[in-house]
């Protein structure tokens, strides 16, 4: 039995009057890839953004319930969000590198957390992060170029490097490949395979094949409810709920 990294308990989320998540309870295993699938607007992003409290920046968003990471309640009053986000990195749907140099993009996190004492430490972190994100070879001669000058796939890998630069435990990915072509997508999927040896990964995806390829467990969301969560093989071969069955066979969504 693998150990549990994240545990959500009866999570309810409202945007103003509108409820976006209903009683979601699930756990995610350590150093595994968990995929979240479901039709558009079903609350996948809302759920994943609860895990590093990115929803805090939305004024009207109210989160009820409990989320524990390593047994600590992340919505507890004494939890510092900045510290939480250092441990729970995030890669967004659309690549969003800072309009600064490639080096600065990756160095920013370590800098603000004071992780690197010397310039050489910082350089090492940047190089290692870029290597882990499988981007280093492509950009090693142009680290001072703007991060926005890279191609879409490279930008997304830069964002992954940025996320791992602060050495998190968990990486959240919200449709990281939706803006990428199949080749770039394949690279990122390959990358996830490497990354899961060190990190716990949660990925939101619209591609059933992707979920099947990369994840060990998959959760299916529908209309704000977690319909079913199980081993990926089980979800795709033998789902217990009719709605899951309909969705993965492409009958709706």
């Amino acid at each position: 039995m693998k150990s549990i990294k994240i545990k959500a308990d009866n999570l309810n989320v409202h945007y103003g009057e509108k409820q976006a998540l209903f009683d979601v309870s699930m756990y995610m295993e350590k150093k595994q890839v968990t995929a979240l699938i479901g039709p558009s607007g079903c609350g996948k992003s809302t759920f994943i953004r609860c895990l590093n409290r990115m929803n805090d920046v939305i004024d009207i968003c109210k989160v009820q319930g409990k989320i524990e990471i390593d047994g600590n309640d992340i919505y507890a009053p004494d939890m510092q969000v900045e510290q939480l986000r250092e441990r729970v990195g995030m890669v967004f749907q659309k690549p969003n590198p800072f309009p600064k140099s490639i080096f600065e993009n990756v160095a920013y996190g370590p800098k603000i957390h004071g992780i690197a004492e010397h310039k050489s430490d910082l350089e090492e972190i940047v190089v290692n992060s870029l290597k882990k994100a499988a981007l280093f070879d492509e950009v090693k001669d142009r680290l001072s170029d703007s991060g926005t000058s890279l191609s879409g796939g490279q930008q997304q890998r830069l964002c992954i490097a940025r996320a791992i630069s602060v050495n998190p435990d968990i990486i959240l990915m919200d449709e990281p490949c939706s803006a990428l072509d199949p080749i770039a997508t394949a690279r990122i999927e390959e990358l996830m395979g490497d990354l899961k040896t060190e990190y716990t990964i949660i990925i939101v995806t619209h591609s059933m094949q992707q979920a099947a390829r990369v994840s060990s467990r998959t959760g299916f969301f529908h209309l704000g409810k977690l319909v079913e969560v199980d081993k990926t093989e089980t979800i795709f071969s033998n789902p217990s709920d009719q709605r899951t069955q309909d969705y993965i066979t492409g009958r709706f969504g």
Partner: protein
Amino acid sequence: MTDRIEQRINSLNKRLNSEKRFRIYCIGAMSFALAWVLILFLNIFSSGYSAFYRTVIQVDVPFLNLIEDTTQFSEMSSEDINNLSMYSFSKKAIYRLFPDIEEKKDKKMLIRLFSIEFEQEIREFLKSNKSNINETETIYLTASDDVDQVNKGNYPRDLDEDKRRIKDIQLLFFDDLVDRGLVSYEFNLPFLMRGDSREPELAGVGGSMVGSLFTILVVLILSFPIGIFAAIYLEEFAPKNRVTDFIEININNLAAVPSIVFGLLGLGIILNTFGLPRSTPLVGGIVLSLMTLPTIIIATRASLRAVPPSIREGALAVGATKMQAVMHHVVPVAMPGALTGTIIGLAQALGETAPLLLIGMVAFVVDVPQTPLDASASLPVQVYLWSESAERGYVEKTSATIMMLLGFLILMNLAAVLIRRKFETKW
């Protein structure tokens, strides 16, 4: 079948024609606006460019008549030279141009060819060259406004004598001086250096230029930081509720308040309640800051809003605090826009007249201000002041001042465009 095609072609032709007509209207409107701008510029330029030149008359001044030995000047302090009585000496130097005239009336007419400060000009020459003054020195003295205008051809010579300010005998003198090659035409540096004067030929735009500069400096120092910080707070940190809505509406209202109201405010509060010195660039700057602030705040907020939210999220997601995300990533991207807004606000302030009239920056100021606490005029107020004077000299100087004002405005707007081009973030 062919009917339908014909119908289509007809309707297409109709649409194309109406597009043509529309384009003609647009071009017409643009040409009309452009023509007005051109007429305005031509008008101002043609009546103002001559103010940048001035007429001087060459006079040989026999300093030996003032002192036994001209080397003695080098031992005198400036004060000693100020104490020398030089009036009749200077006049005699001028009479030497026409040694034959005897009558007092004619002599007076001759003196009047020169600006009233001829004695002062000779004294200044002496002061700045005191260590090597020869027995006789050639000095270029400023001609009076009337002579200047005649020389520039602005003055109708064929009017009856009693309708002219310049008399026949003076014209005779003048023509003779021209024939002897003593009248020359030079770049009017004093116009750019001096303050205002009651004599049109001596009046300069330097004082009001420095006054405007100090005023704009005060505006910049006050409104740039306040505007930027207010905008950052309102856009990034303020909770969205009734209070901030109210503040937002009022900032927009403030931008629409007629500028003269700010002048009244300055008069009532800054001068009367706080007792700051009247007519000074400091007070002018404070009043204009009130006007400029909304412009800066609105421009800065717009450029903050234009920064994609994904940048903020990217910074927050690696654990930056909200302030770090804003200061490290959002503000740098928004800065070119904020600077552009600031420059445009400053340009507005530079051309503003009405509030300055109310806080007393219309004073007649001869001295070029040394600090923002000295009484001073500003360029647009100088235009206002001179435009009321009838003398030809002031008329051309009014236009010349407008030219300078427009020049500064164009420079500032150019700077705004360049900053935006150069520092704009490329995504």
